[in-house]
């Protein structure tokens, strides 16, 4: 699979500084996004530690194991099925996220001024046709496939948990004044539970990683529309950020957009690609 990627981040229209951070590691096909929290500039410290640690730790793990290093270019493992065993990447990602958690926690322990800082973390790792996800908090991953937007992560927030337990409806959750209450975040405690998942990918899939500054300002339909309207991932990410700002830009906003395609393009695949689009 071929992956084309773009990312954009903005402070928004209300906040003084941007506590979001993201990292695109093309050679690993690893994409990491973090939304920091905490007074002064400490949210920025936390999110920076988060993305840096995850990116570096994954790179180290891949290079430490020659068996998995070859997969880094995405070619040799191109046909791993969606339901293949592995889980190796999920374990690597989870361990990287736990390490980031410890680093943020200890940094805050050592510096009294950083007390209470924390961050969300969402990471996507593509290996052939397999997507491995790890996340803590309420930054999300979406998959756009065939015009439908699917959320691939479950928020670790109070309102999302209340919806899962049937206490409130999704519509009520969107209006709740408790939306900012997270149940899990990096840096809050020495140990953190990391949620991981795997998903099979297909040609023409579009992935979006984003902070809550986007999802609180822009609805699913608008997001799906923006992703479909712009073929260039970099421009699509910028458009989404602009959309969040147009709608009020209440928080920092970050978007990473990934487009997937078949490795080889011949006239036939162009034909099928075109036919499918028109046929819908």
């Amino acid at each position, binding site marked *: 699979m071929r992956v084309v990627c773009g990312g954009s981040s903005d402070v928004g229209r209300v906040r003084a500084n941007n506590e979001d951070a993201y990292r695109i590691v093309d050679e690993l096909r690893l994409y990491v996004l973090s939304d920091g929290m905490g007074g002064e500039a400490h949210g920025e410290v936390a999110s920076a530690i988060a993305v840096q640690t995850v990116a570096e730790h994954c790179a180290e793990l891949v290079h430490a194991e020659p068996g998995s290093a070859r997969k880094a270019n995405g070619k040799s493992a191109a046909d791993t099925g969606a339901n293949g065993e592995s889980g190796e990447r999920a374990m690597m990602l989870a361990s990287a996220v736990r390490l980031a958690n410890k680093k943020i926690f200890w940094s805050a322990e050592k510096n009294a001024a950083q007390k209470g800082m924390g961050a969300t973390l969402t990471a996507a790792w593509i290996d052939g046709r397999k997507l491995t996800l790890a996340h803590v908090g309420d930054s999300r991953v979406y998959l756009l496939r*065939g015009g439908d937007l699917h959320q691939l992560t479950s928020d670790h927030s109070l309102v999302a948990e209340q919806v899962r337990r049937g206490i409130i409806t*999704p519509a009520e959750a969107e209006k*709740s004044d408790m939306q900012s209450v997270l149940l899990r975040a990096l840096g809050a405690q020495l140990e953190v539970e990391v949620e991981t998942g795997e998903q099979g990918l297909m040609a023409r899939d579009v992935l979006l990683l984003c902070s809550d500054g986007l999802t609180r300002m822009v609805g699913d339909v608008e997001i799906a529309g923006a992703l479909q309207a712009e073929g260039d991932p970099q421009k699509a990410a910028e458009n989404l950020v602009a959309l969040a700002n147009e709608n009020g830009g209440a928080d920092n906003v970050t978007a990473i957009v990934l487009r997937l395609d078949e490795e080889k393009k011949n006239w036939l695949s162009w034909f099928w690609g075109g036919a499918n689009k028109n046929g819908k």
Partner: protein
Amino acid sequence: MAMLTLMYGEKIVKEVAVGRRPIGIGRAPDNELPVDNPAVSNYHAKIYAEAGKLVVEDLNSLNGTFVNDLRIERAALHDGDQIHVGKHHIKVDTSGVLPQDMDQTRKATEMGGIDSTMVLDTKERRDLLQQASAFGEQGQFGSGRLRMATLAVLSGKTDKKEYILSNKLTVIGKSEMATIQLKGWLTPAVAAQISKRDDGYYIGMGDKTPLVNGTKIGGPHRLNDGDLVEICGVRLNFLFRE
């Protein structure tokens, strides 16, 4: 303050305000709203405030609790809702303000300003999430969360007879990425997809439109326990299993 009025026909039996303590409904006399009727269980249901909402929860009653004629296990209440237990009903009036049942969280939220993100530490989190079960029905809806969604194949050619929907997104089609592998020349790579959201499982169109209980879906459609799904000549039964 939210008010609950227990009625028998047009007659007002009792009126109570919802405070910090849950309001019990049942035949036992120690309930805040005692209902003297053989169709009502001793401890039939309870109503309490949670997360700024009024919630009614059925306590495994024999004959069930109904909100606006729908049988519920647990439901958020709104102003004007009617709860039926046996032959009695309870009118819900939330035009007053709900008690601040989550002082801790609210205070913390206010401290940081409503817009700033905060994390609950484990204790707060436990308290908040288990508030409902803390009143004696431990694990009642905990068990509900362990249910697995499955698709059982009733007829048609598939690679397995039953599928557990463990992924966020389950693909039905000919694609090698599909969890539910269909065969056949004209079968599309993605015939339909089932998406797991916070509030349930939704089936959406792929290159085909699936039928749910004999009707074509018009967009993402929430699946209920026992629903019959038909797609590309395959009939599937959506079931929750313990």
